[in-house]
């Protein structure tokens, strides 16, 4: 029974990595960060200091965006957030327990 559980965990781990690889392979993707509900990064393809910076700032932004949407209409909720800047675009897919942050430079 123990062996079976270990295989399941391995399988799950490999799937997560595969998914991230697929996303990373899209055109222009510069980095991916997965942040948990408390704003702490749990997976990243960027360096430490950038990751911590992005995680902290974006968590606050998503919370603000979500409360804006729900204040306007309490039945509504945030599904996706895109921040476009001169140099790149940050895409955030929020969820109950995690956020997925992808930084893309579309012209790359």
């Amino acid at each position, binding site marked *: 029974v123990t062996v079976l559980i*270990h295989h399941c*965990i*391995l399988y*799950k*781990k490999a*799937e*997560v990595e595969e*998914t*991230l690889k*697929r*996303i990373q392979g*899209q*055109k*222009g*993707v510069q980095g991916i960060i*997965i942040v*948990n509900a*408390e704003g*702490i*990064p*749990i997976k990243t393809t960027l360096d430490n200091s950038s990751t911590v910076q992005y995680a902290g700032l974006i968590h606050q932004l998503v919370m603000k965006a979500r409360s804006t949407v729900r204040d306007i209409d309490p039945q509504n909720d945030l599904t*996706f957030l*895109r921040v*476009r800047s*001169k*140099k790149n*675009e940050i*895409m955030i*897919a929020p*969820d109950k*327990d*995690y956020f*997925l942050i*992808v930084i*893309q430079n*579309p*012209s790359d």
Partner: protein
Amino acid sequence: MFTDETLDALGVESLWRKSQQFAQESRGCQTRPVHTAEAEIQPLLNADNGTQTDPQDHLIYQLPPKGELRPESPGLRDFLHRVEDMVVKELASNAKSHAFDGFDVNWEDQNETVSCIHCLQHPSAQEKGLQVTSISWSCTGSVIACAFGRVDDGDWSTEKSCVCTWNLDRRGLNPKRPDMVIDVARPVMSLSFHPSQPSLIAGGLYSGEVVVWDTNRTQDLILAQTGMSTDTHREPVYQRSEQVCFQVAWVPGPRRGEMVVLSAGSGGRVLLWTVDSDEGRLVLSAGFALIRQQVPHNSALSKNRGSSNVGVTSLALSPWDLDTFLVGSESGLVLKCSFSAQTLAAAPPDGESVTLRAPAQFSFSPRGGPVHSLHCSPFHRNLFVSVGTDGLAHLHSLLQPDPLLSLRVSDSYVFGVRWSPTRPLLFAAATGQGLVQIFDLGRKSLRPAATLDQLTGGQPVYCLEFNPRRKDLLAVGNADGSVNIWHLSTELTEQGPRETAKLEQLANEVAE
């Protein structure tokens, strides 16, 4: 008959019991006297600091215990499963989208024009016909200092000159009256503000001396100077000429937080001076000598007779590698040098207090005439630009001898070149015809993106410096004794979206 009597005690020795005492030897030892010393210290500054680790469940990076696989964060796989398709779709459509093409946002007021906002002059220096030889911005970006001297004088000048400073942020700014005028006995050839202390200025004089002024003082502004000792840039007496100090700069010293003054002169010496403010002296701490025979790959110049010293006319420090510096010479050599070079210089000792070393490590392809100015790019560790009397600006990579790009700046001499601190592809060059040409390497054409006419009636422009804090100001020093402060347009100061990538591309091109 009966009397008391006491009898002696009688002892009987034991026959079978022997003395338990065996042979005994005593030895003693003692350590040598222990040296003790007492010393007291007192910290001047105190700081308290505390740290605390996070509770175990808040740690970001947890290493899995050996031999056991920790389960993934619960629900991560399902979360990714849910969002993957949506995210991939958005990424793909974003990459193809033209929705934002040409879309620009104005967060700040756009400045379309380039204009000269100040024309600073010191009338008494102008009357004497002095030229502006060097300018420097203070580290705060509010004060501009300019040095007066002469560039075109061939012989030893005993002219008195001065260093003037203006504070551009002061309300009562009078362009014709400097805030401070420091009188100097000799023409000043080079000036450099201290990179973190806004009151210190280092200057190199025509006579080879190096002086550090402290503008905070009320009397006698000289904080330290080299004086006419054998250490200064001075050739042996029988040659009857003195070395001109063409460049001064502040470089980090051996101790943390300390800056030393670097000076380079026409005698081929690059010297490092420590500031001893108590004695008011600059003490020589290290020195380098550039000797022609020790310059690598020097086949082209061995035909020259004359002095074996390589006279330094320009110097550039690399902001990326504190050990590297570039030197441009009177004969057109451009050399990559190192502060940590250990080879001894083949120069006859001239009474200097330190042994001179030979710093040159690599020689770039030589120019046709003296190299007046060099500058390392603040955006790419391998790129630098050099200009000289041949009227061309050469863009070099530190990795190869031939230039990557050669631009015609002017038909006459080019005296100064500086990279823009905000736009990786932009640099400005000062010409002998009184113009400042600004080149944008991102453009297809090799013609300048902007030309600033200094209105000097054709007299040369000798130096130019970008303001380190305010990215839209450029100061230009002219031969007619005036310093013009230009306000650049947004196009020349705002970084475009792909500039760093284009610069990287340029740097990686191999010259044909």
